[in-house]
């Protein structure tokens, strides 16, 4: 590991200016749970590490029933699942936040960092895509929005241009009778990386019998997390039954193009997409119905 400088700006403007100034050799540190390991193991190098935890906007956690959720890019997972409103409105997000690393990691690791790290197997990204989250990015030329579904471009690569910083993630306000779920398959019960992860969001009609619309997203089955468009579109108007979930799982498998590696064969991963799509849809429906009963 080479020695590097460290700085912790307190404004977005300062951070963006530092990033531009040290173009190519600056690395952003939010929780640091990926970047510090990568630096130590020589997977990435840094001339300067820019700690963004001191920037107020990046620590936001504003959950509002009308305007939705604004989640600062460096807000740690433990704060997210520690917020009852977020747990109720965006359960796929908190499902993911609860299983990224152990407790120590969760008290530092952020969803923004998980997204920027752009691992194909990242736990939070299928949940973000299912929840239709949008990334707000600040750069030398001002701010822009990138839908999370378009944020990752390749393993370890993202859509941020030189000098750009992820500020926050914005989630639409929860619609009535909607809910979501994220599940991953791991061979152990903890401290593991997803062999496959699936996030599902859906909205039921007034009766709770029919799916109005749905979004299914998949992790660890392609170079980036993917939105399962065919399965998602097909679900609209279908009855909320096990048979529907199973058929959606069949369709979701078509969106998967996995590799075989030490975590599982391609054939197995495609199979798991079906299983987890079915299970997350059932869970999301169960939650949406329970919410209706409680509300």
């Amino acid at each position, binding site marked *: 590991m080479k020695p590097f400088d460290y700085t912790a700006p307190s404004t977005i403007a300062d951070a963006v200016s530092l990033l531009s100034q040290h173009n190519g050799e600056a690395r952003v540190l939010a929780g640091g749970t990926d970047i510090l390991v990568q630096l130590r193991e020589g997977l990435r190098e840094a001339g300067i590490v820019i700690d963004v935890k001191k920037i107020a906007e990046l620590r936001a956690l504003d959950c509002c029933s009308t305007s939705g959720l604004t989640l600062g890019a460096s807000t740690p997972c433990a704060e997210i699942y520690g917020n009852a409103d977020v747990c109720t409105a965006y359960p796929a997000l908190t499902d993911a936040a609860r299983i990224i690393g152990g407790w120590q990691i969760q008290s530092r690791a952020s969803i923004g960092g998980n997204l920027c790290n752009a691992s194909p197997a990242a736990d939070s990204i299928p949940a973000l895509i299912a929840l239709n989250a949008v990334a707000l990015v600040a750069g030398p030329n001002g701010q822009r929005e990138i839908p999370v579904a378009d944020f990752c471009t390749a393993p370890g690569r993202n859509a941020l241009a030189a000098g750009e910083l992820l500020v926050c993630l914005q989630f639409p306000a929860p619609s009535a009778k909607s809910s979501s779920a994220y599940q991953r*398959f791991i*061979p152990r019960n903890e401290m593991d990386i997803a062999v496959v992860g699936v996030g599902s969001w859906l909205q039921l009609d007034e009766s709770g019998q029919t799916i109005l619309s749905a979004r299914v997203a998949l992790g660890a089955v392609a170079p980036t997390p993917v939105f399962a468009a065919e399965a998602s579109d097909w679900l609209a108007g279908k009855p909320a039954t096990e048979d529907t979930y199973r058929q959606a799982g069949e369709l979701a498998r078509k969106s998967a193009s996995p590799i075989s590696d030490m975590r599982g064969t391609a054939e197995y991963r495609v199979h798991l997409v079906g299983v987890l799509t079915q299970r997350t849809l059932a869970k999301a429906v169960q939650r949406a119905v329970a919410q209706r009963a409680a509300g």
Partner: protein
Amino acid sequence: MAAGSDQKKYKVIGTRPIRPDGADKVTGRAIYGADVQLSGLVHGKILRSPHAHAKIKSVDVSAALQAAGVLAVVTGADFPELKDKIAQLGEGAVNLAYLSGNLLARDKVLYKGHAVAAVAARTANQAEEALKKIRVEYEPLPAVTWVLDAMQDDAPLLHDDIHTDSMGNQSEKPSNISTHLHFETGDVGQGFKQADVVIEREFKTASVHQGYIEPHVATALWNTDGRLKIWTSTQGSFTARQQTAELLQIPVSQVTVVPCEIGGGFGGKISVYLEPVAALLSRKCGRPVKMTMTREACFEATGPTPGSYMRVKIGATKEGKIVAGEAYLAYDAGAYPGGMIGPGCMCVFSCYEFPNAVVDGYDVMLNKPKTQAYRAPGATHAALACETIIDELAEKLKLDPIEFRLMNAAQEGTRRVDGPVYPRVGLIECLEAAKASEHYQSSLKGPNRGRGVAAGFWFNIGLKSAATANVNADGCVTLLEGSTDIGGSRASIAMQLAETLGIAAEDVHPAVVDTDSVGYTDVTGGSRVTFATGMAVYQVGRKIRAQMMERAAELWEVDAASVSEADGVYSSGEHSLPFKELAVKLHEIGGPIVGSASVNPQGSSNGFGVQIADVEVDPETGKVSVLRYTVIQDAGQAIHPSYVEGQMQGGAVQGIGWALNEEYFYGDDGQMKNASFLDYRMPTALDVPMIETIIVEVPNPEHPFGVRGVGETPIVPPVAAMANAVYAATGVRMRDIPMSPPKLWKALAEKESS
């Protein structure tokens, strides 16, 4: 709970005192290898091969020598010439050229991660940066990483000077098969003719690693007077001393090894890796050099246990009597000869009466790191094969699996296929305890659930141990021992001395000391410490007792022959003093008392165990959950039952990991793809239930307190027990280990479609 112990024979043995090293360990004050800090300390790092197999055409270290902070660079050429030098290293003969070649490669690299050069620099980062400046020119060669492939005539050859040794005969052509072993008893052909049921199966297992939490770490100081001092995390300080001295061709007495606390070894911290390299660097730069392995290096370049191919056949009569067995075992040895095939062959049929049996074993070299011992090395593989077939036979014969095992269980007088005849052993008692256990008697209900049982055997050796004890003026006893404490042995050794002296466990203060401060002691391995070092302190205790009796006679002015001792109280006529009170008076009656002993018991103490596993399989994902697990084992006599239970639980958990997920996963390029704890999946605390234990005590007649070793037997049955449980849950026999979810799902899907 302890079955079979109906008496309160002992005051200290069998109790659970607080461990003497507990406070230091739970407060972080214990000194592990990584905690060693010395004035002027510098840091060493190793350059490792990116290829699984390649010729080294040249190594240019000139740029590295010029790099910032660099103080020394060494390569394989810095080791003395060791061709054809054989050393006796306690566990058999070792060709020093192979050992040295494993530490720093010379002409060829034989596996990915093979060490090629080392740098010492002022900081660890400087050393790492300097490694990047070493230019190594390789000529890559084809690699082979599966044992059966490596046995083929046209396989890439690792060593052109190694020929197959088959019962003393050398093969004409060089070969990757270094040894062919053959054991035979009775007449197998006739035996199988008597059989009504014969089952023959093939098995494969992947390489697995011990997975000790603490990576290898060593610090060496080659002083200006020529003396070499080493601080290291090792299972055997004397073995580390001897290996280092032999490799550097210096006298053993020139080397002192200070054993640090050790964060796990399980057999993997017997061979040296860093110590001699750090010593060479220290000699060049004149400073203490510290080296620490990364986890990746631990996986890629230390010794896992073999991957294996096994074909085993067993025949039984319809009445349930085993009549014949045949085993073909091929274990990989890694890049150098001398793997775990010997014990594998001896263990495969070790649990039962086999009137007729034949075993052929092959030690096979391939492009993987040199294998090392891992807890009952070689036995777990063999037990998988034997115990799976035993389970199938029991099912075919419509016999309860424990009943079938009882009908054939090894007992006093049973001759093992490799020759030895068992003295009093405890397998039958373990099987009876398993059968009577609440676990086995309970019913297991629900879909996709199943129960499996398996038995296992391990030798448990004796070998050399020494100890010294000093009686202090306050009546406490300081105990110096050479056995590094991995599994609570400070406690179990101190307790045996306390029992011998009739004093409290807390009044013995044990210390694990360096190689200059105690007599030669073999490794903490082979489940030998509580047995052999325990025997040494028993003798130490008896010697102290004899001296105390003489001193009492002097104090009371009576005839020494009139003094007796019982329960730590010395008496003669109306005189009587307990040990502690007599000790206080020692300065008046001849001064302090010291006792020392050195023992070298031979043979094995023969530990048997039985395990019961309840599992549930998710048919959609192939994931196995362990619902309940019980370990039953003959400990001979449990000294500190908590640590016996700890060994039983730890071995079972490691075996469960081996069964379910652990494996060296190789790519087509011969490289390990999962050299991290993220992708090398050992079980976590959330992956196993509380492991239940039943200690059986059939005292070992060869030990003063009846001790049998306990550390290794518990890892022998688990893979088989889990495979048998998965079969009971799903109807699928898994013979390709690990039974990882992708493999089990595939097997379930194939069963479904057939």
